[in-house]
Structure formats: structure tokens, C-alpha cells
């Protein structure tokens, strides 16, 4: 494998020495471009108290191309589909090499705090969300309790 770019080394070091509150990200030993991420559900959101697992991968042309991020934990959210794929502008067109892993993870956490059913990825969830928001929030809470429990 080609040598790891300095940028990735620096970002990794900082993620470990100065982690973002409520988020952990550790590189795999076998592949330093692959990260295992956990994210706390933001307070006063339906995902509160949940701990979500994600995977993050830095492609070869990172940072010119955005990292690939996916939820591993099941989650009921209009912008995250069954496979855990996330619809977020900074992961696509609005990516810039000036952004970092930590900023991306923070953006995802912010997406949990404010779902956007008008630009949906999971159409059925977005439909529920628009028709009956309180009920959708209830479902999201149930899923959080069921799938995103803190491990003992």
C-alpha cells in the first residue's frame, strides 16, 4: 500500500488526541483509511441517548474527494436510507478539500438534530414525517431505543 498521506495522519492524530464531543473515530489496524465511528444522538432530538455505529472510508483521492460514510446502526430518519447511506450536501457536491473528517461527522450529527424531509433519501420515512411529524418522531425514538442501545 502506498504511504499514507500526511493529511490523513494528522487528521487521525487529532481525532484521537482531541476528539469531538459525543463522537469517536478510530482507524482500523488493517487499513488506516477505514474508520470505525460511534456517534451519540444529539440531545433533545428523537435520537437522544442512542449510540450509533458508522463506518467511514477515505478514498484514494481524499481530500479532493469526500470520505464515504454510512450508518451501520438501523435508524429512522428521512435523509438516511435502509442501507445507512446518508444524503448530505457536503458528502457530495458541496464537498471541499478544506473540510475534514471531524467537520463531516459534526455535519452528520447536526443532520440528526434537524431532519430535512423535503430533500429525502428514504421516501417512505420522509412521507411519514411530513404527514404526521409527532408520530414519526415517536417511531424514531422507538428505533433508537431498540437498535441504538448503549453497549454494556
Amino acid at each position, binding site marked *: 500500500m502506498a504511504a499514507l498521506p500526511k493529511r490523513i495522519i*494528522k487528521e487521525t492524530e487529532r481525532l484521537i488526541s482531541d476528539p469531538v464531543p459525543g463522537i469517536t473515530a478510530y482507524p482500523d489496524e488493517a487499513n488506516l483509511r477505514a474508520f470505525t465511528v460511534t456517534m451519540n444522538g444529539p440531545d433533545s432530538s428523537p435520537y437522544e441517548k442512542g449510540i450509533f455505529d458508522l463506518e467511514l472510508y477515505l478514498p484514494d483521492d481524499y481530500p479532493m*474527494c469526500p470520505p464515504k460514510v454510512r450508518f451501520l446502526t438501523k435508524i429512522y430518519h428521512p435523509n438516511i436510507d435502509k442501507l445507512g447511506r446518508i444524503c448530505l450536501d457536503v458528502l457530495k457536491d458541496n464537498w471541499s*478539500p478544506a473540510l475534514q473528517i471531524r467537520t463531516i461527522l459534526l455535519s452528520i450529527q447536526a443532520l440528526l438534530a434537524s431532519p430535512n424531509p423535503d430533500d429525502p433519501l428514504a421516501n417512505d420515512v420522509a412521507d411519514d414525517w411530513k404527514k404526521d411529524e409527532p408520530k414519526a418522531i415517536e417511531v424514531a425514538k422507538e428505533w433508537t431505543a431498540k437498535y441504538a442501545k448503549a453497549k454494556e
Partner: protein
Amino acid sequence: MSEEGSIDYDFDEDEASDFSFESDYDDQNDNMIDTPIESPKDKTDISKLAKFKKWTTKEFINENFINAAVKLQNLQLPQCNLEDLLIMLHQLKWQSEEVINNYYDNYDKLMNDCGIPKVKNNVIKEKLEYSCPICCEEYDNIKTFQLSCGHEYCINCYHSYLKTQLTNGQLIRCIDTSCNLTIPHLLTQEIFDLFSQDVRDPAQDFFEVPTANSKYAHNMLLSSAARSYINSKKSKYKWCPAPDCENLVELVDNYALHLDNDDDDFDEYLSDEESTLLDPSTNNVKDKSKSPSVDRPIDISLTPIVSCGTDHQFCYNCQYENHLPCPCNIVRSWIKKCKDDSETANWIEANTHNCPKCLNSIEKNGGCNHMTCRTCNYEFCWICFKEWSIHGSQFFKCNNFDKSEKDAIELNQKQKRVSLQRYLHYYKRFAVHESSMKGDMKALDKINQRMESFMSEQSKQNLSNLSWTDVQFLKDAFKALTNGRKTLKWSYCFGFYMKELIFAEVFEQTQEHLNRVVEDLSKIVEEINDKKNNDRSTELIMKNKKALISLTNAVTKGQQSLIQCAESGLKEERLKFDLSI
């Protein structure tokens, strides 16, 4: 060689010129070879229906992007510089009026959207020590780049950034996400050029008076913008489908539309209905209110065959090579059929035999010649296809070969497979001409190279006073051969769908004639290229000059005759298609 021998070759290759469609079979008052058809007098020309303009990508950029900016500067907005105007045009999808309107109505917003600062200070610096926040490398000696915002990054990162951004054809902004400033077109190219391998001749730049167009020549951002602009207007612009050709053709005017829709917005109609309106095979060119009637004769002279700046002819409607004599709808169903059937059919044809009793296809993948059909349990011999029992105990010998009986069996097979056979008959010929065309092209390329080196040798030694016009016949032969093959190729598609009417025989004779002259021409080309004749190829070329010229003529005429034969036959309904095949 006579004038009418050339097919659309007389376009000026260097300029984007307006051209009306010029069909390659206009000259019907010549002596047609083997064609007992009189030219129809009421021939409709496609130029009455539509007008096309050909562009190279470069011309397109010059005219629609750079000259648009120059024009704005000269006429409406002299206070702006060219770079800013290009950015504004790019931002507003190259609509000059939009730029003018926004400039006067909403100046601040326009400048903000375009990322043009009031004071400009874009710099490429040389730094002795620099640590780049993007790649995190620490450099001892590096160039950096920053826009007026002062967001500074190393030139390597900027270069990679530009490369990835280039693909979407949009304006490229500062790397910093909170910053909206745009990198001007010239600067993007300047950064690319820093990394470019090929060094431009400074002498050339010295003698060339820099014009707006030359400054922006080879600008990669503008090329990418052109690609995305053209791709977004699919009904108005079509790329030439020839491999590696970067030319395009624009539908300038669709008269057929104007006839019916004088008051309607041309562009709006184009996007929705252009394809059917330009499709002669649907026959609703002039009458779109009525549903296309199946019984109306097809007029293939309405097929919008256009030619790009490098003489590649193609059908604007199908965006496919010149498929005359076939009308567009026949081409569509042929291509679909070939996609669906040809692979499977070819395999079955090559690898299986039918059971002589139930006619199921059987693949023999090993074992002896004593076959038992899995479907009907019939036991037979794989060699003579007769019942196995008559072989007695002679397991590995078959003495029962009888020519006439075998023929009878084959006839039976053929009857059962008639549709497949028929298809394969035409498909094979279609495919043979396609592959021969590729072979011919290679051969002619070689000949051309040899001829060139011969010519330069001759002129060096002052041996001959041959000029390039004297060997023009080679180029003509090349074009005639490829065009002839193309027409032949499609004539087999035509033949496949053709109903068996009496006039079909005339078509087939004309086809046969073209076949013969094409093969004759191809043979000479092959002979010249034969390795055995390597030393005397130029000698052979000059020796065969006369034959080449006359065959070139014959091929061109034969091609015209065939298309004309199809055209008049269809128009007078002496030829008909059966799409149910």
C-alpha cells in the same frame, strides 16, 4: 475525375459554415449504371425542412462563449473586463441578455453569485517555507495560490482540486467552503499549464498577436463548460458519433416546424417534438395533427443526414452513422434485433445441429456419434443424420453418406429455421461490410503514409514535379470505399425488412453491382498493401492510378444509384417494408 463524384467533400474544413443539407445522391441526371429508374421530378430536399450548422468544439467555444463576451464588452458593458464577463456568462448559462439584465437590475447579487470581488488580488507566490492546510505537507520551496480572499493553499493541492472540479463544467470557486470567490478562466489554465508536460513554442507566441480567442485557446474550463452546455441541449446540438471526433452539428432552423407553428416558440417545440418531426420514417413531417399513416410511402430523401467538419456523415435524427438507404425506423428495429438476437443466433448456428426428427437444436459436446435426442428419444448418427439402427454394428464408421438425402435433410432444417437463416444471411453481410470497412481504413492509412514519405523523398531529390493534387485520387478512393461499404452494409438491413415484391430484384441487382465495384476497389487497395509488394507499393499506386480513379467513380455512382433506387422504389411503393419479420 468528375465533379459529381465527390460526396459532400466540398465543405470548407476550416470554418464553421452554414450549410444546407446536401444529399449525396443529388445528381440524377447522370448516366446511372444499371438503374432503369427515372429520377422523380418532385424530389423533396431536406434543406427545405431543416438547416444545420457544423462546429468543431473549438469554434463553438470561440463563437458562443468568447465572442459573446467580446460582444458584450464592445457593445453593452464596456466598463467590464473580459474575464469578469466570461464568469458572468458562465454563471448565467451563456445567456447574454440575462447578463445585461442582471447587471443593471441586480448588480450586487450578480457580483456575489459570480464570486467577483470589487478589488482583485489573485496571486501565485513562490514561498521558501510553507505548510499547506490541505495536504498538511511542509514545503521548503513551493508555489502557492490565493484569490483575493487570501485563502492560500499550495499549488499541488490547487491543481488536484481544479482537476476534480473540471468534470462538472461549472465555475470553480475558492477551496475554502465559506468563500464564494471564483477562479477566473485564464488563471485555471495558468495553473494547469504549470503542470503541463508539453512546452509551447515561445516563438509562436511571439509572432502571434494575442487576441481574445488565442488567449483562451486550449482553455480546459471552457471546454468542459462547452461539453456540459451542449449535452444539456440535446435536441439542438448533436455530437458527431464517429469515434474520437469532437465536432458537433447544430439544428439551426427546423422549417418543418415553422410551416405549422408560425407563432409558437421554436425552442419549446424542439425539446419535445423535434425527434418525431425530423423523422421522415414516421411521415408526419408536415402533418403532425394527423397520426402517421402506415400506408403513406416513405421518403428517405428526408432523412436528416448531416456531415460534421471532418466529413463524417451521420443521421441527425438517430445520431448514428449515415444509414441510407434505410429509413430511421428500420434502423432502430434492426439495431434492436441485432442486440437481442445476433449473439445467440450466431452461437446456435455455429455449435448445434437439429434433431432430424423433432428439429430441436442439439449441441454435441463429446461422446460418440450415436446420438439420442433428449426430447423425442430418436436415435440417429451425428455424421449422416439418419436413423442409428441402419448402421448395424459399425459404431465408428458411417458409410451411409448420401449426398441427395443429406441435402433433403438440410432443406428440411432450413425450412424450419428459415427466419433465423434469413436473418443470419443479412446480418452476416451487414457485419462483413462493417469489419471490412475497418480493414480498408487501416490499409488506406498505410498507403497514405507511404505516399507521403514517397512524396517528400521525391521533392527532396527534385525527382518529380508531382503535387499533392496529383495524389488526391487516393484520398477520394478512401472516401468512396468507406462510403460505399457503409451504404452496402445498410442495404442488407434494408434487404432484411424488404417485402418480396418484383421491384426487389432491381434493388438487389443494383446492390450486387455496388458490391462488385466495392470489392474490385478493395482488391486493388489490398494488393498495393500486400507485404510481398512492399518495395514497389508507390510504383503500384501510380500504375493503378487510372483503375483507382475509375473504380472510385464507379463506387460513388453505384452508391448513389442504390440509394436512389431505394428512394424512388419506396416513394412509388414498388418497395415496401415488413416490420413484422
